[in-house]
């Protein structure tokens, strides 16, 4: 057998910079899209991504109507947008962290992804992006359901496009950053951690004003909510879609009003708070992930499976 001698060209060991990074990111997103969306089983996919948020919105709206005697249309919008937006968190936060566990324990591919030249965090961000996109489908369907069935149409003329785009962009960054932070945590766990991401997501659901304003929570707990970018993201998106609605942050009994003396944050303050908390969370997640990756490599956790 005649063979070519490998040239051992050291140029091959060098990266191709951003192009390579971007290719790795897109590939991970494609894998995520194909693997998580479960296109092969549309019924299952529909149930999880679409029916679940709609059902949740419906249940909450019915409960709200019973409690208020149907007298709280503003709260209806509040609840439905909260549930719809939560689909993004479900995907980009819990889903991203779950993909670490799934790749490691179920598909056993984490180590092969890890030893490829694509940066591990970049691959995870790609997976997170796919999950966010899938979550976005759930969010859109839920909002459409709200508009068509629950009688809460979005008035295009009144939508604050700038606020919407800015809130969404920052919010998605924050969600993925939080997801990366959660991934850093589950990377350290050996087993029985499948429920962690959902549990943390559940706790945040209550803290960020998804279905009820922060004002109903005790002061110190509200403080946690105010530090989480998800709170400001939801506030921003709600305000952009339904101007003049109920504020999650301010109002009587709220820590925000107590501290600032204002009824609700004005839009620039809201965006500033969203930007600040997003930066904070992103920085914290980046540090956590670095530390976690190093520790995982030190302890041999990258290819850890519950079996061994």
């Amino acid at each position, binding site marked *: *057998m*005649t*063979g*070519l*001698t*490998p*040239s*051992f*060209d050291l140029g*091959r*060991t*060098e*990266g*191709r910079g951003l192009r*390579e990074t971007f*290719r*790795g990111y*897109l*590939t*991970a997103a*494609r*894998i995520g899209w*194909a*693997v998580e969306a*479960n296109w*092969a089983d549309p019924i299952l996919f529909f149930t999880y991504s679409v029916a679940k948020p709609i059902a949740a919105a419906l249940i909450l709206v019915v409960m709200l109507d019973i409690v208020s005697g149907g007298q709280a249309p503003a709260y209806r919008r509040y609840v439905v947008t909260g549930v719809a937006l939560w689909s993004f968190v479900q995907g980009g936060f819990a889903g991203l962290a779950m993909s670490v566990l799934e790749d490691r324990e179920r*598909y*056993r*591919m984490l*180590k*092969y*992804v*890890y*030893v*490829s*030249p*694509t940066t591990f965090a970049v*691959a995870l961000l790609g997976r997170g992006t796919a999950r966010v996109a899938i979550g976005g489908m759930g969010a859109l369907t839920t909002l459409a359901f709200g508009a068509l069935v629950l009688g809460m149409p979005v008035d295009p003329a009144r939508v604050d496009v700038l606020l919407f785009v800015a809130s969404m962009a920052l919010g998605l960054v924050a969600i993925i950053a939080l997801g990366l932070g959660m991934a850093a945590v589950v990377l350290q766990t050996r087993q029985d951690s499948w429920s962690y991401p959902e549990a943390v997501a559940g706790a945040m659901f209550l803290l960020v004003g998804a279905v009820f304003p922060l004002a109903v929570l005790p002061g110190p707990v509200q403080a946690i909510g105010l530090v989480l970018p998800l709170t400001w993201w939801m506030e921003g998106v709600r305000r952009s879609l339904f101007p003049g609605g109920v504020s999650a942050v301010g109002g009587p009994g709220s820590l925000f009003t107590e501290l600032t003396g204002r009824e609700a944050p004005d839009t620039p303050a809201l965006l500033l708070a969203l930007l600040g908390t997003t930066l904070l969370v992103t920085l914290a997640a980046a540090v956590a992930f670095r530390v976690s990756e190093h520790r995982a*490599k*030190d*302890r*041999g956790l*990258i*290819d850890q499976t519950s079996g061994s």
Partner: protein
Amino acid sequence: MPSIPLAIDTRGIERVYKAKPRPITALAGVDLRVEPGEFFGLLGPNGAGKTTLIKILTTLLLPTAGTAHVFGFDVERETKRIRRIMNIVSGGEQSGYGLLLVREQLWMFSQFYGLGAREGWRRVDELIEAVGLQDQRLQKVSSLSTGQRQKMNMARGLLNDPWILFLDEPTLGLDVSAARAVRTLIREWKGAVVGRTVLLTSHYMAEVEELCDRLAIVDRGRIVAIGTPADLKRRIQRDSIFRLELDRLDGGASSLSGLPGVLKAVTASDGSSTSGGARQRTAVKLVLADDNALGPVVTALGQRGSQIVSLEKSEPTLEEVFVQLVGRSFADDSEDGGSDTDGRGSSSGTDGAMADPSAPPPPTAATERMTEDAPLAATGLPER
């Protein structure tokens, strides 16, 4: 062209795992040098530290102490460079994204290695053919058999045309024919381009013996011996052992014991020394002080009217090398190793039969090829 650095160069690699009752020392100072182009084996029982060493070399795990370089790059600091020119395939696992098609999954990995989109498809199709998965290429990964999954995993491992391929027990858990196909594939890939390097771990001695140019015997985190299989066998002290088949032997095997240079003579277990048959043959196992003692034995047999039907010298096996070096049998504690020379035991004596059902057949039987031509030569694409 500057001289090529060693493919693997480890100095004093230690690895201690923090574990519950007390820390586990998986590697206790490993110095290993492998040249580019070598097919190198790490042979050792379960728990010897083989996987730990491979994980360190493939940038999955940090060493506790010592340094390791792959083609001159530090495994701790130059991980990206190493990852571009190496790949790893492990056995004994069912890996893969079940929902993806075989071709899809491989293509996605080609993208992780920075191949262009079209270049990726081309490489994937070549490799699918090389590993013999043409018929499964459009199947879901979840529908593959264990053997097919491992072939796909091999294809993934070859996507970046690695300078060095790490194989961690690549045939573990495969049936005999799948294991053989994987070994053939490895041998062909390695042989197709001069300079390709393979580090293979295994606890199947015959596999290492069949594939590797050179090997290290590893036990309890240390390299206890290193060399070519022939070197290692030569190194152990051993008497000359011959197996003779005779048409008849009056007085039985013990009658040979008194001859000069004969340390022991026993009836071999597998000889058909059954009484009653018209044509009896007798197999005798002779342990001689050295090869020169054979001559007088042959003469003596002739004088007694015994015809020699066959005569063969039994070669030491790597198993014996291991037992001599380490002082215990290879196959954990479960088996009492074949130390019987009284010829009454089963057919596993010193003839190297192995209990492991998935162990490869002896090299002579393994010459069949998976494919007639060598598709892997084609994947030795010129580097850019």
